[in-house]
């Protein structure tokens, strides 16, 4: 059983909703990324989505694009991200880590080489935004090495395709709660609830809901019908320009704890 599967099984047994924060690796400060990851766990994170910076993040909004640009400007690359996961694992063997990013950095690094290094570092899954189901053969080396490929589903996904995604889903299925970019507004809870209910009935993996979740209130609204909630842009925005390790950890804690509490209320 993979670390991700174990974590979701434990959540289910405890009847808790998972909390999955997203941060861009290397932002706001490369030297404090590992400390930030631990701070996320201390504030209640169940899984960490660690963004691999890319110069042309087509599916992300301005907040995450700018975080990527800042990290790239500081020289952050895939090797740094893997080194931080290795360092994180020295203290934390249990929290699953999903790398989220785009294909080109993996392609250039080499898929087989990346797969070996990621597994050795302690990465559990990859969410490659620009690699839909039809193109997943390029990631076969990753799956063979034991990395779970997290798939996305969207409100625009047609029923037949949704069935395929539900069948292929491993780790968890990430439901993008509306057809837009990361960090945008607009969230019609009853619509999402209805769609997610359908998906959960079909999917072979738990369903996490993200895109547009920004605080305790919006997270709680989703908690009633999702296995987990993903929070990205709002957290990245909160961390922006925090300087010291202390300040970064404090801001992450202050942001996540109310959300954790709201998820655990029901």
């Amino acid at each position, binding site marked *: 059983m993979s670390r991700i599967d174990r974590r979701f099984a434990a959540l289910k047994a405890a009847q808790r909703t998972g909390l999955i924060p997203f941060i861009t690796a290397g932002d706001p400060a490369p030297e404090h990324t590992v400390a930030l990851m631990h701070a996320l766990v201390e504030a209640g994170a169940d899984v960490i989505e660690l963004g691999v*910076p*890319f*110069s*042309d*993040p*087509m*599916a992300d*909004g*301005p907040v995450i*694009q*700018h975080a990527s*640009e800042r990290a*790239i400007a500081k020289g952050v*690359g*895939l*090797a740094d991200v893997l080194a931080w996961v290795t360092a994180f694992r020295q203290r934390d063997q249990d929290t699953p880590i999903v790398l989220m990013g*785009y*294909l*080109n*950095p*993996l*392609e*250039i*690094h080499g898929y087989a080489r990346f797969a070996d290094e990621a597994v050795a570092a302690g990465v559990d899954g990859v969410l490659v*935004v*620009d*690699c*839909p189901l*039809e*193109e997943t053969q390029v990631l076969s080396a990753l799956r063979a090495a034991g990395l779970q490929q997290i*798939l*996305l*589903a*969207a409100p*625009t*996904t*047609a029923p037949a*395709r949704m069935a395929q*995604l539900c069948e292929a889903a491993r780790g968890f299925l990430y439901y*993008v709660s509306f*057809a*837009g*970019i990361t960090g*945008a507004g607009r969230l019609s809870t009853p619509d999402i609830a209805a769609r997610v209910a359908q998906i959960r009935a079909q999917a072979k993996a738990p369903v996490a809901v993200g895109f547009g979740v920004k605080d305790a209130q919006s997270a709680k609204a989703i908690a009633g019908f999702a296995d987990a909630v993903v929070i990205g842009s709002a957290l990245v925005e909160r961390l922006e320009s925090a300087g010291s390790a202390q300040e970064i950890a404090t801001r992450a804690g202050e942001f996540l704890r109310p959300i954790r509490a709201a998820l655990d209320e029901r």
Partner: protein
Amino acid sequence: MPTIQNFQNWPDAHGRFGDFGGQYVAETLMAPLAELTEAYLRLREDPEFLAELDRDLTHYVGRPSPIYHAERLSRHVGGARILLKREDLNHTGAHKINNTIGQALVAKRMGKPRVIAETGAGQHGVASATVAARFGLKCVVYMGAVDIERQKINVYRMKLLGAEVIPVTSGSKTLKDALNEAMRDWVTNVADTFYIIGTVAGPHPYPMMVRDFNAIVGREARAQMLEQYGRLPDVLTACVGGGSNAIGLFHAFLNDREVRMVGAEAAGEGIASGHHAASLAAGRPGVLHGNRTYVLCDDNGQITETHSVSAGLDYPGVGPEHAFLKDAGRAEYVGVTDDEALEAFHLLARTEGILAALESSHAVAQALKLARELPKDGIVLCNLSGRGDKDVHTIAAREGVQV
């Protein structure tokens, strides 16, 4: 790569040209792309649609464009005959309108009242704004802030045509960033919006659709060659940024194996300088903007900033069909520097009375090189993809002239 029997029946059903192309996009775009693919595959066989397109190409764009024997230029070089396919004579002054007319008609048939476009030099933006006005569609154009500064005249032209121009300030503030931003708009507004991509890049079906609409260039040229010269040219040349005018010229000739094809990429200040946009000549296979192709990137996979004197070639990727033709050995891709392009620009202006676009001047420079290598009875057919009025200020500034 296995031997290719027929170069004209690509891409496959998945939108792949061998190892290149495909649909490397976020899940949110898969449904809109499927909707577009289905609509386009139907329309490309629809006689009514094709007749409507043909009428507009004839009466609105002004097709066919001539092939012109540049005699004085050829004599100056002292080699083979140089023929120019005069896409600069089209309405709006470039080949870009062949594609925008086609896509606007698709948008209309799909019932989308709003079109969006990305633009580098502004040519595709102008061509999109033009057809939006022509068909009564609302038009929004995304343009990098740096390009807006370089191409003020085209920005104003778009506004005169009723389009809204939105500056893009992320990343390198050029074409690739405008493309990212347009893609985001499309994801968000897909219900009423059609995205007119300006080159043979992006996810399937765009590389195929944009090629189909530009392929009229090569079909006409091939027929004109046979009619006027009784033979095919020895070599074709065209500039390659994203590669739409080049694939437009090449496509009809792909199975004429005796016809050589050379794409001229922007070598900027020289490939060795690192300041260039020659994705095929100096890049490597990667994934950018929804397709697998040759890209310019660093060892971390970050797309690098490109340089060319011509904004329209300033792009770190290239259409996947060109990547395919390169690896199959069917076409060659070489770099032409800023200086060589400018020299060709001046030479063409003085010998033939034609101001070529800086993009097209790269093709002209390559045509001069190819003509020198061939005997006098040889023929080089060069795609003169656009006119140079838009570049007059850039050239003056570069040469220290106050206009």
